[in-house]
């Protein structure tokens, strides 16, 4: 099975405290650390396990700048066979649709049975997988937490739906799946693993290589744009609710309602 996994380099939510820059329109990125999007790790692990079972190869691809190469290397250290970096100044400012278009162009150059993405990344939109599938007219399933290969034509996948239930579907190949965390236990990649693949050649492709019209991607082609970042006001320490128990409960319920707790 030929599997392509789309990955992304993101600020690591577990290891960062997010603050705005001086101008207040972007994150203060000086102190941020980046790593591969957590969901993508699960997708790559799943791809590797599938290839271990039925043969084939795993290719990881990302759209990004030169620094994004590090996440490709990390995934290759996990066991992905090939990496492709899609990088071009024209790609900058792409919205989800733009990224999906770039990936679609690359996918069409290969012969993949299965395209995997993480269920979501730093932006929390969870959009690229579904868009790629629609562009390619491949069937799609999101939030996949189980994959059973039936034969070389179809697979059964479980989707994680509300309440911890699992929705089982049969999909024809080729297809696109977005992978939910918890589907497996991604293996550990240390510094040593990355160094081992440090010299592996990773091709870089731009819009010309992919046959893309530069105006259709990047900021020029984006219909959705992020204007700025901001942090909603948060006071220091807890707001202490005081009064009789009934009063406290009354106030608490109002707050819980506002925050989606009820």
């Amino acid at each position: 099975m030929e599997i392509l996994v789309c990955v992304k380099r993101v600020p690591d939510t577990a290891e960062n405290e997010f603050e705005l820059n001086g101008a207040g329109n972007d994150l203060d990125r000086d102190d941020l650390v980046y790593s591969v999007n957590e969901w993508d790790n699960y997708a790559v692990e799943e791809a590797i396990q599938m290839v271990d079972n039925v043969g084939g190869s795993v290719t990881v691809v990302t759209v990004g700048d030169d620094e994004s190469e590090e996440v490709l290397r990390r995934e290759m250290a996990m066991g992905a066979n090939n990496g492709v970096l899609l990088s071009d100044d024209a790609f900058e400012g792409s919205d989800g649709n733009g990224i999906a278009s770039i990936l679609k162009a690359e996918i069409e150059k290969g012969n993949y049975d299965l395209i995997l993405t993480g269920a979501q990344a730093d932006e929390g939109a969870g959009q690229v997988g579904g868009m790629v599938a629609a562009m390619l007219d491949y069937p799609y399933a999101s939030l996949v937490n189980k994959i059973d290969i039936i034969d070389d034509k179809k697979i059964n996948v479980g989707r994680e739906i509300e309440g911890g239930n699992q929705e089982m579907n049969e999909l024809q190949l080729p297809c696109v799946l977005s992978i939910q965390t918890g589907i497996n236990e991604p293996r550990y990649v240390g510094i040593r693993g990355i160094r081992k693949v440090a010299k592996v050649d990773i091709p870089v492709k731009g819009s010309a290589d992919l046959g893309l019209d530069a105006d259709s991607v990047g900021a020029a082609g984006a219909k959705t744009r992020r204007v700025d970042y901001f942090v909603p006001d948060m006071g220091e320490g807890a707001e202490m609710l005081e009064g009789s128990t009934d009063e406290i409960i009354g106030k608490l319920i109002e707050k819980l309602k506002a925050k989606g707790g009820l």
Partner: protein
Amino acid sequence: MTQIFAYVPFNNGQAEDVALEFPEAAKKIDASATLTAIVTGSGADLDSVAGEMSKIYGQVIKVDNEALAYPNAEVVRKALVNIVPEGSIVLVPHTTFGMDIAPGLSVKMDAAYAADIIDFQGAEGTTLKMIRQELGGAVSTHVTADISAGAVITVRPGAFAPVDGGSAGGTITDKSGDAGDLSSKRQFLEVVAAEIGDVDITKSDVLVSIGRGIEDEENIEVAQELAEAMNAVVSCSRPIVDAKWLEKSRQVGTSGQTVKPKVYMAMGISGSFQHLGGVKGNPFIVAVNKNPKAPIFQVADVGIVEDILEFMPELTEAISDL
């Protein structure tokens, strides 16, 4: 004039709560837009939901087809592409279903896409201004979308104030005939129910998390009842697992699960470094602890100095009475 369509999912003949929230969202997009609910499905359940929706929405479109009996996102998408006019705005809840259908729908409609919107700030010309969150809720962003060719937007359930339903007296239009070819390369098979006791606390939006303040195994029931009333799940800090009162899978902390709920009810939890290391995504933290110096109050949004064993039952009762 802008046309907004709200896709209303339902389970067992019961529309999801978000059905009441779409009107507020639509109003914030464009108060003058026409809002139409779309329900898809098959048989009596569909009719009943369509009827309910006609009380909330001025227009309701229903699509009845065997192939839509289960909301297979791929099939529903095909129907919507055929039914929704070009250039419209489609609202879908940001749920596991919404995430499944919406991105592809935007491609097929050739429309802009915006996900998990928590607020709208109106449109200027064809530019719609919205607010959403990134990085697990750590930061918020303003985003704009060019809606000249329409838009598909998933809205966060609970983010918009629900309307009082009941008297819209809307018209129900049956567009079953317009759904077109509903064949799909993805077949729904079945829903495998979660095993009882096999709760995944990492997936719950609201956690009632208990700590040493629960004092005794028997008192866990009190927390369970509160969780039920809040439609939440019970999680805990490490001492509870050590005492074997709850399974390890319920433990929040660096040595347990990392959770990203929207609301975290820290009940009798002192708030150790190790415990809070497992609480991510900047949830709204409510801390109840009888010790006013408990460190949890430093990080909580709301603090209450009370004995949880007395406080929780009263809160449960108050919530149940709502």
